[in-house]
């Protein structure tokens, strides 16, 4: 193993333990790891954005072929407008750039939600109830669940009268859903822990012991 990797393993092990030390209490070692993490991740992003977006998507394309790519300059100009907030006289230009950006993606979301979420989910809920008994019962359960949850979120009327029992049913469905999702996720989270602990045990401690006491 190259020396750089050996040092790397020790550094990684130290940082792993530094983060875990927070579980006992906040301490200078955790703070050290946190500060490095924050700085390095942002530094990494700077290189990434420059080499993966600004350079290939803007500079390179404008230099190589400015004719058909002129519109990319608008992106650059909108981007520069964001910086106008540092100059009080023209700071409003930053808001214009944000308005364009938000306007575009709000429009995208509008259609995505209606077309991509509402339509298929409604379609999938229109289930037949005349099949085999057990299957139909499950379909009925799904229909009742969807409708009661939808009605639970109804804002225009207080939850009284007929709405009260219906939204109560909706609450039960939501509680089952949250409990089940919670329980279902536990395994994936423990897998992450296994990954780290395996690194500490098999990647760090065991080779270290083997090194000190001779391999066996």
């Amino acid at each position: 193993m190259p020396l750089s990797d050996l040092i790397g393993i020790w550094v990684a092990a130290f940082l792993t333990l530094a983060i875990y030390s927070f579980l006992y209490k906040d301490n200078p070692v955790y703070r050290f790891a946190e500060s490095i993490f924050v700085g390095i991740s942002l530094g990494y992003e700077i290189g990434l954005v420059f080499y993966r977006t600004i350079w290939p998507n803007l500079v390179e394309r404008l230099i190589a072929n400015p004719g058909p790519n002129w519109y990319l300059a608008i992106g650059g100009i909108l981007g520069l407008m964001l910086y106008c907030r540092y100059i009080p006289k023209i700071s409003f230009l930053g808001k214009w750039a944000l308005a364009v950006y938000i306007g575009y993606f709000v429009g995208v979301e509008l259609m995505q939600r209606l077309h991509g979420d509402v339509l298929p989910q409604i379609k999938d809920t229109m289930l037949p109830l005349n099949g085999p008994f057990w299957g139909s019962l499950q379909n009925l359960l799904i229909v009742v669940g969807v409708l009661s949850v939808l009605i639970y979120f109804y804002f225009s009327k207080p939850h009284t009268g007929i709405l009260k029992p219906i939204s109560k049913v909706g609450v039960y469905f939501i509680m089952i859903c949250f409990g089940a999702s919670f329980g279902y996720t536990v395994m994936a989270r423990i897998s992450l822990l296994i990954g780290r602990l395996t690194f500490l045990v098999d990647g760090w401690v065991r080779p270290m012991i083997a090194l000190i006491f001779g391999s066996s």
Partner: protein
Amino acid sequence: MSDAMKIGGIDKRWVYLLVAIGALIPIIKPLGLPVLSTPAVEALFEKIESLEPGDVIMLSFDYGPSSAPELDPMAESILRHCFQRDISVVVVALFPLGGDNQAKIALNKIVPEFPVVEGEDYVYLGYKDGGLAVLRRMAEDISIVFPQDNRGIPLEDIPLMQRVQNYSDTELSVSLATGIMGEWWAILVNAQFGQPVAVGATAVSAPKYYAYLKAGQMLSLLGGLKGAAEYETLIGEHYPELKERSQIATRGMDVQSIVHLIIIGFIILGNIVYLISRSERTRAGGRLASK
């Protein structure tokens, strides 16, 4: 530390400590907690048990490094099982982002454990891009897709491949798959060419494969780490000499079982404490629950 660290009079760092210990012990030394095998996994084991020495199966690596923790143990167990029983294996890789690498990792690990000869007891044909088209092609002639093996030897010069021209010369196909690729084996290789297909899938995608299993388009389904652990257990039961080596998924499953039990134990403990001192104000449970 402040009282906020305490939950119902118990410092929550005890919870952290128990979780850490519960996870560490099986990693250092596997406990071998009971793993109940399910019919879906037994089906593959029984199928391989039923083969005669010299029979051939095909094993396809259709996953990359991100699924490796769950699917590597399956690959290793299946290879061990086959080599132990003198069943020949034709290995291919169809996943573009790392299938080739996973196949090499598994073979490099398992082959030295057995007195097997490349080209006679197993062959690695390498990676081929093309997905469905490749699967369709191999039904006619594997050598069209893979004219030579990973070493560059033409298939006609490989003793094992002289016995195998297409699916019909193999007894079974196993796909260890990430995402959609296992479905291809079911809907194409099984449904159209009648080849028995078994799929090893990650836990996340396993539920959607149940439909194929139920419909009989798959002989067997190994789901996630648990499926891998079941297979390891079956091997350990039938071949005690392999038990020591096949424990990776079992070890992970030990951790899962223990930590799940610790969490459930704490929930029960928390409720006992809560019932004893109801006056205590707990803010948790959220709005819906506290209404």
